[in-house]
């Protein structure tokens, strides 16, 4: 009898240990791919590896589809078709492309044109590897081809038309956020309870990690040499975040930094701030609002972001860090200011 008891205790102990090891607890699964001209990583919380893989594969497949439709540089994309038809042929597009362009126009309106996808024609004149930028007279000649009001859309027929010949739309400032949102929708539809999707620096997360804590996203130090050096962290759940900075694509000529965020009014790189991070519900908006706020500068940019129910962290050109009050519960600053030497 007594031995039986001891035996039972031992058996229970073994059973307990085994359950603790090979359990069906929630775990993190991560997969990354080079696509959409950048690095995309998806992290999901799941009890089953199979379910996690299936969901991640479906999300990557959706991103592949978006890449085919929206790539500015691919001649086969719908964006290229719209650009080829400029000044002549209205182009009928898929609901996905139409939704992206429609949202881009909406953001142009709420930012008074600080975000503008018609900058494509000027974007093409900057070559950050060859260190080439357009001259003043070139910019002057091309500026009449810029302006979101010159895009005509017909929602019923899903038609997009660029009024002036030579116009080009480049949705690069909104596509990655849009893609992150789409990937999240796919993961949710596949029954995933928590996940984080990062399309380069455009990130959206929902739910909590297996240990019950929120997702932690670092904000890159805009002047640190290493890309993984961060100056702040954000604790996020059911939120998106994007950053626009003058350090992503740039070159320096005679002490002047030429970077890729252009002011639609001047056609020149926007000045005044060096990094803008926007936080809010949807990545489509954090992505495009970050670009718009960068163009508008510290005061106007911050005001515009907050007016639309989003929040921002801004680093000005002297390295001072500013942030929306609403971010305080989730923001942790690791540096008090950024060392700027240019």
């Amino acid at each position, binding site marked *: 009898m007594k031995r039986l008891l001891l035996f039972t205790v031992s058996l229970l102990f073994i059973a307990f240990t085994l359950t603790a090891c090979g359990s069906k607890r929630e775990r993190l699964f991560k997969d990354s791919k080079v696509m959409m001209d950048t*690095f995309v990583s998806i992290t999901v919380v799941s009890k089953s590896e199979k379910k996690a893989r299936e969901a991640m594969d479906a999300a990557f497949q959706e991103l592949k589809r978006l890449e085919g439709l929206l790539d500015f540089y691919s001649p086969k994309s719908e964006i290229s078709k719209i650009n080829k038809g400029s000044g002549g042929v209205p182009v009928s597009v898929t609901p996905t492309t139409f939704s992206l362009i429609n949202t881009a126009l909406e953001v142009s309106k709420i930012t008074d044109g600080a975000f503008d996808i018609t900058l494509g024609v000027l974007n093409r004149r900057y070559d950050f590897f060859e260190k080439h930028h357009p001259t003043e007279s070139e910019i002057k000649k091309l500026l009449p081809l810029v302006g979101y009001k010159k895009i005509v859309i017909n929602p019923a027929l899903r038609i997009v038309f660029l009024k002036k010949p030579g116009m080009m739309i480049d949705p690069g400032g909104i596509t990655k956020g849009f893609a992150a949102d789409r990937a999240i929708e796919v993961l949710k539809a596949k029954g995933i309870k928590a996940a984080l999707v990062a399309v380069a620096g455009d*990130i959206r997360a929902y739910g909590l990690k297996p240990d019950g804590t929120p997702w932690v996203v*670092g*904000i890159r130090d*805009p002047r640190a040499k*290493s890309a993984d050096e961060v100056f702040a962290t954000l604790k996020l759940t059911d939120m998106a975040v994007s950053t626009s900075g003058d350090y992503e694509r740039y070159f320096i000529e005679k002490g002047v930094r030429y970077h890729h965020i252009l002011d639609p009014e001047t056609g020149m790189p926007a000045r005044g701030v060096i990094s803008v991070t926007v936080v809010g519900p949807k990545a489509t908006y954090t992505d495009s609002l970050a670009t718009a706020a960068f163009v508008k500068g510290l005061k106007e940019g911050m005001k515009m972001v907050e007016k639309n129910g989003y929040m921002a962290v801004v680093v000005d050109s002297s390295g001072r860090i500013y942030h929306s009050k609403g971010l305080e519960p989730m923001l942790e600053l690791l540096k008090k200011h950024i060392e700027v030497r240019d």
Partner: protein
Amino acid sequence: MKFINLFRDTRPLDWLVLILVTTVSVASLFVARATSAKASDLVTVEVKGKIVYRLSLSKDTEVDVKGPLGITHVVIKDRRVRVTQSPCPEKICVRQGWISRGAIVCVPNRVVVTVGTEIADRSVDAITG
């Protein structure tokens, strides 16, 4: 039947079984921890989404990987990784410098160097910017 009697009446073989079970359980806990700690030591080099090298961060080494544009040179030294040469036009990967966590990505040459495994032991889950 008091609990104390259980111990008094236990035979040597019972003790042996109990000790064995305890040792195995405790040891398995340590093994599990050691294995997961090792995970963040792993450096993987991928070309076009396929892993071509699995290297250790603690062993200094240099490797060449062939991508669509040519050879990317990856160096591991003093528990850090960097890309020193790349055929890509913008050299973003080279400019990124040394990393001890996260990833270096060369989009044009389709090369991805990652420190840590799929479940990386990182203080942040992602970086914006």
